[in-house]
């Protein structure tokens, strides 16, 4: 069973291995340069980050993130989805289920080997990226605009640590399960991609922020237009720079009464100079309200998110496991139905006449040619020849 699983997914195994080699080379060869920069400028993070923003580092940093987002989608669509759907579609399930290995063992071995390999691939890739990015993470994250993209930020979180391992397990199992339910490779791939995209988006957007109730603080702030940015509706935002590695969920400037501050139509800010506007702002006793997950919770979140992906993966494996018996019933029925639908009523070997009143089939091309009135056979039509159809 192990050999067959390997033989059937050879291309996927080798592609994943090749991808790992390329990732290892790309990041292995550039890591020393990045570490050297950190050794030189590490005590001054701003200096270090300014250096990191140049040359090949931005490309490597964000390409790594893209790879880690793409990996589960590719694993689900090209590895998980075809694994069982292809067998059901081609009918080879009926060959393999009649060897001496039970169907449940067949399913479990496929899930274990494929899922295990996918997890190992994602784990190694994530380890390489996390290792390469360590100096940037220590400096608080990649500089973007006036703030930083920490490893805790939603965009980066799922690309580091152990979360990709959980995501790979989920992606693979989802692909297998969808393939088992849809029984067709292409639709299974499409549905898997759509579901994965939705899940991978929903996790940081809707689930993660609520896993642990966030910390928050409110502090007086001297608002100004020099360091703060203003949104279209006049709200001010002051980048939080004193909490490196934290996940900032919301960052608002509020008034003394607690409502969100929006720049009103004051003459000082409408027609005056920036300095006049700033001095007006300074008198408004504004406060900054920040909702965040502290950097110290990073690994708690890593573990929680990984466990959620793994739990969904196990649940999906359970669905597959239960379904494998029900699918059999459907397989046999579906096959019989398909067989009848794809009947070739007439071929070179057979000639049929459907003249009213005397319906008969005659078998030509044979020494003992016979004519059988179809009504004698209790049939309206006779099936003499058929071509194989996908199960």
């Amino acid at each position, binding site marked *: 069973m192990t050999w067959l699983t390997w033989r059937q997914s050879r291309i996927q195994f080798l592609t994943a291995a090749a991808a790992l080699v390329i990732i290892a080379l790309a990041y292995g060869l550039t890591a020393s340069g990045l570490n050297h920069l950190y050794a030189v400028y590490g005590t001054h993070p701003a200096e270090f980050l300014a250096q990191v923003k140049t040359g090949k580092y931005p490309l490597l940093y964000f390409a790594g993130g893209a790879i880690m987002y793409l990996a589960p989608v590719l694993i689900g669509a090209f590895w998980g989805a075809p694994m069982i759907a292809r067998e059901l579609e081609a*009918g080879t399930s009926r060959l393999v289920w009649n060897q001496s290995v039970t169907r449940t063992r067949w399913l479990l071995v496929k899930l274990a080997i494929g899922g295990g390999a996918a997890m190992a691939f994602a784990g190694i890739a994530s380890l390489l990226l996390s290792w390469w990015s360590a100096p940037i993470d220590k400096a608080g994250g990649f500089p973007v605009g006036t703030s930083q993209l920490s490893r805790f930020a939603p965009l980066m979180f799922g690309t580091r640590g152990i979360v990709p391992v959980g995501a790979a397990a989920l992606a693979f199992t989802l692909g297998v399960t969808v393939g088992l339910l849809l029984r067709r490779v292409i639709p299974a791939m499409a549905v898997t991609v759509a579901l994965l995209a939705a899940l991978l988006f929903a996790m940081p957007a809707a689930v993660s922020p609520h896993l642990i109730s966030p910390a928050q603080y409110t502090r007086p702030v001297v608002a100004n237009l020099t360091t703060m940015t203003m949104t279209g509706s006049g709200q001010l935002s002051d980048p939080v720079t004193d909490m490196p590695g934290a996940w900032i969920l919301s960052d608002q400037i509020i008034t003394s009464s607690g409502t969100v501050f929006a720049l009103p139509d004051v003459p000082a800010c409408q027609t005056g100079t920036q300095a006049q506007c700033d001095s007006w702002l300074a008198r408004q006793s504004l406060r900054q309200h920040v909702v965040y997950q502290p950097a110290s919770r990073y690994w708690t979140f890593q573990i929680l998110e990984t466990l959620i992906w793994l739990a969904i993966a196990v649940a999906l494996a359970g669905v597959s496991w239960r379904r494998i018996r029900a699918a059999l019933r459907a397989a046999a029925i579906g096959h019989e139905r398909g067989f009848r639908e794809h009947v070739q009523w007439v071929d070179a070997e057979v000639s049929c006449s459907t003249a009213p009143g005397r319906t008969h089939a005659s078998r030509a091309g044979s020494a003992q040619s016979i004519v059988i009135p179809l009504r004698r056979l*209790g049939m309206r039509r006779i099936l003499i*020849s*058929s071509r*194989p159809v996908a199960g």
Partner: protein
Amino acid sequence: MNTAIETQGLAKRYRGKQALAECTVAVPAGAITGLVGPNGAGKSTFLNLVTGMLAPSGGSIKVLGQAPGTQLARVGFVAQDTPVYAGLSIADHLRLGAHLNPGWDQSYAQERIARLGLDAKQKAGKLSGGQRAQLALTMAIAKRPALLILDEPVAALDPLARRGFTDDLTDVARSTGMSVVLSSHLVSDLERTCDWLIVLNGGRVRAAGPLRDLLAAHPGQSTEDMVLTYLEKTS
């Protein structure tokens, strides 16, 4: 008489449609049994119940003395359309068989493939219908089952290949003593091969017994006519 398959009132319904009903038969061990009937008669349903690919909706069935599907190593099954892995070579298929079956007879499998004039390195997807059926049969025999089930094994073959296939199957069955059950909607496929015949129509067993006895009960009739007589009683 030792029985390979024994059913009592076996029934199968799909979505309200009765595919098999009140099926009580005893298929003898060590014989070649033919299952004949028009399409939709319940042949595939019966064979899928025997292999445990389907669960019955009523009645009981024993295969080699036990519940169907519990003795995978002792029951060989060549499914309808003889599915094979298009991307795997013949040698890969034999390797697959060796990995998945404890009683696998690799030397027999290799010898048979060579005898059939097949190139072991060839991809199964490139084989003709007849060659594919032969590969599937080789795999089923090399498993060394006590009971071999074949569902319409020759349906995709031309008349000459049909004869070669059934003659070959007869030789193997006689020399190994294994029980064989094969289905066909053409009597001519079965009459040269089978010791026993089961006539199915409309999901019911119309006749079952040694071919010789069935023929003796209809003096002067050919096998074809005899089967038609049984099918005619249906309506």
